[in-house]
């Protein structure tokens, strides 16, 4: 899926990571919306909750709000979930209280 940035950023194309808390819990086993991610390209640091997320396609793509790098991408089939984190330098996940 190669859609120009301007078009992707039109209303209706993206939400933010917060709305995907449940979907990410399916993958990570816990709510990671308060985890802090660092973009491997530009170094921007942001909470997963505030990362632009594109979920209109068959998979989900999370991109850096600053430079548009793909931080995380996943697609779920009936038998498994494929997860890529090509542009994520680190993900800081707080200890459970």
């Amino acid at each position, binding site marked *: 899926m190669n859609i120009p940035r301007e078009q992707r*950023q039109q*209303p*209706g*194309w*993206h*939400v*933010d990571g*917060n*709305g*995907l*808390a*449940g*979907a990410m*819990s*399916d993958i990570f*086993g816990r*709510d990671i*919306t*308060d985890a802090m991610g660092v973009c491997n390209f530009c170094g921007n640091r942001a*909470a*997963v*909750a*505030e990362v*632009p997320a594109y*979920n*209109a396609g068959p998979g989900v793509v999370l991109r850096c709000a600053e430079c548009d790098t793909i931080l995380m991408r996943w697609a779920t089939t009936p038998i498994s979930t494929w997860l890529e984190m090509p542009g994520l330098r680190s993900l800081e996940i707080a200890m*459970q*209280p």
Partner: protein
Amino acid sequence: MARAAALPRLTWLPATISDVRRESATATTLRLDVDDWPGHVPGQHVDLRLTAPDGYSAVRPYSLASAGGSGTVEITVDTTPGGEVSTYLTQGARPGHHLEIRGPLGKWFVWDTSDTEPVQLIGGGSGIVPLMSMLRTHDAQQHPAQMRLLYSLPSAVHMLYRPELASLHAEGTVTFLYTRQPTAASTRPPGRITADDLRQHAINPDLKPSAFVCGPTGFVETVLTLLVGFGYDPERIRAERYGEGSST
């Protein structure tokens, strides 16, 4: 926050619609009866799942509108044209209908009631919903922190939670910013939120307020820029964006 975080694995819970309230021409509040609901903190949401007789199912996130800690589960759904889930929830849902939810979800866009610093809420359109949960929690607990809301909406007929917000408006807690058609009593020309609106109605940045901003992406980006320009600490601002129409 601790209560939500302490939840074991997320599971789908059966829910029964117990009350349906029309909020505006397009938005409806649904009260849900959920056994074993663990409670939520204001700002959180649930995933809602509808399953058709043929097994087809659809999942959407909806912000909780009810006060945190109350045990009451209410969501407000705005119709998205052509949205298969929102169309049912706003037009077809009736008391006694069954669906499933899981949650509460979200650990970032939440108001921690142990904080006593002032809280500025800024909502655009149906971005009011999680902020309403914060206002209701604040009210129910008679919380000592100062809390104010700026609510940007096209006109008075689009207003959600009208009786409650009208009384909070009378107390000076809530300011309505009409983008298209102001009321007769309003002296502000219609239009989008401006730096002037913040200067006149938002909590003074010298008081070190935190801020919660929720609405369509463009609205949120505008408000974030205005708040930082006004002197708010970016570290104390939390935002929730929804693409108009994408998660219907």
